[in-house]
């Protein structure tokens, strides 16, 4: 906002900021029980959240877990303080839900399998034309530890220290898993 004449304000607003403000308002309304405001938030973010779940856990449980993310968001929305964008808050909540469900689903077992065999197994499938995978499918075939780190770092933009904190590992392991994932996936992008 800038003042051009005493007492007369001209509002200049960044469209992205306006969208964030509208989401903050919807979050406030949802916190007081407004289901329509919460549905607007759902419509805005469902694609990103569902894609995150699908990439982290796989397609089989994606609908169930994505739904759970939004149910959890509804119950916890009063803790959203507007310090970050609502999408950032929701995304972090989603990661927590996913990691908790991962334990239930048993996918945590062996997720930090660094062995060449585990990673080569992913690449080997791509070598056969009839089993050619698209990039998303190739991500899905990574060992779960490498997949989680790759999704969180290269797709979602988290830093290694944040990932280490979320996954309960050291940053060095996060870096190592990321490199293994990239080295495996590069084979899928070769002509």
């Amino acid at each position, binding site marked *: 906002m800038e003042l051009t004449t005493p007492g007369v*304000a001209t509002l200049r607003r960044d469209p992205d900021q306006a969208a964030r*403000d509208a989401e903050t308002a919807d979050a406030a309304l949802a916190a*007081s029980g*407004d289901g329509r405001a919460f549905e607007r938030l759902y419509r805005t973010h*469902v694609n990103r959240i569902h894609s995150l779940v699908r990439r982290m856990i796989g397609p089989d449980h994606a609908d169930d877990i994505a*739904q759970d993310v939004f*149910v959890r968001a509804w119950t916890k929305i009063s803790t959203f303080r507007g310090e970050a964008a609502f999408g950032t808050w929701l995304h972090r909540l989603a990661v927590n839900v996913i990691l908790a469900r991962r334990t239930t689903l048993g996918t945590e077992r062996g997720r930090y399998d660094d062995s060449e065999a585990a990673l080569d197994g992913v690449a080997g499938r791509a070598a056969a034309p009839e089993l050619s995978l698209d990039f998303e499918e190739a991500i899905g075939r990574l060992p779960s530890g490498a997949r989680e780190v*790759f999704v969180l770092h290269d797709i979602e933009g988290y830093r290694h220290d944040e990932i280490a904190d979320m996954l309960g590992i050291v940053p060095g392991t996060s870096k190592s898993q990321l490199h293994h994932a990239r080295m495996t996936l590069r084979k899928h992008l070769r002509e």
Partner: protein
Amino acid sequence: MKDRWTDRLSEYLDGELAPNERIALEAHFSECGACRQTLDELRRVVARAQALDDRPPTTDLWPGIARQVGVGAVVSLGARRAQRRLSFTVPQLAAAAVAVALLSGGGAAWLLGRRGTVAAAPSTTAGGSPAPSVANVTDYAGDARYAAQVADLERALERGRGRLDTATVHVIEKNLGIINRAIRDAQSALAADPANAYLNLHLAREMRRKLELLRQAATLAGARS
């Protein structure tokens, strides 16, 4: 072919190598085509990852979510009453308080001043009939749960009014008047510009302020009983 640098290429790509290691690796690139090629391939992987599109679920998840959280579904009157009672739980009132703390500020005063020149947007048409409803306005103003919360708090305040001293009642009424005027102004302005994100935010902010003021006043009245 792997050499001692192969496993450091991602760190190089991400700018995480120490300066002396980065210089050494860059010197290595001049004589190692395999590392240069691998680095290019890793770059493509990262670029591909960042270009991935988010895809929607194959079925709309909202009906299931709405059912679980108790919104947007057809419910019995008894269930609605239960929901309304639930809407007065401490966490939700605390949520309203948080929202007010987040959203209240100088904007209301600014907008009130600004609306002084344009808030004459008519609430009725020239013929005297009601103005057409506007989606954004009715989204908030027509919210039955919000109206129910306000009405319940107003009743609670009215019941405890006698326990408050005159000066407190005066302050509460004065502030409620200011907030009500801000709400009316925002609704009028939104009738003329329904897509205005700032006005929508402002309206939500004022409605939250009203809810919080009523809550505090009702609590105050109850606390002195």
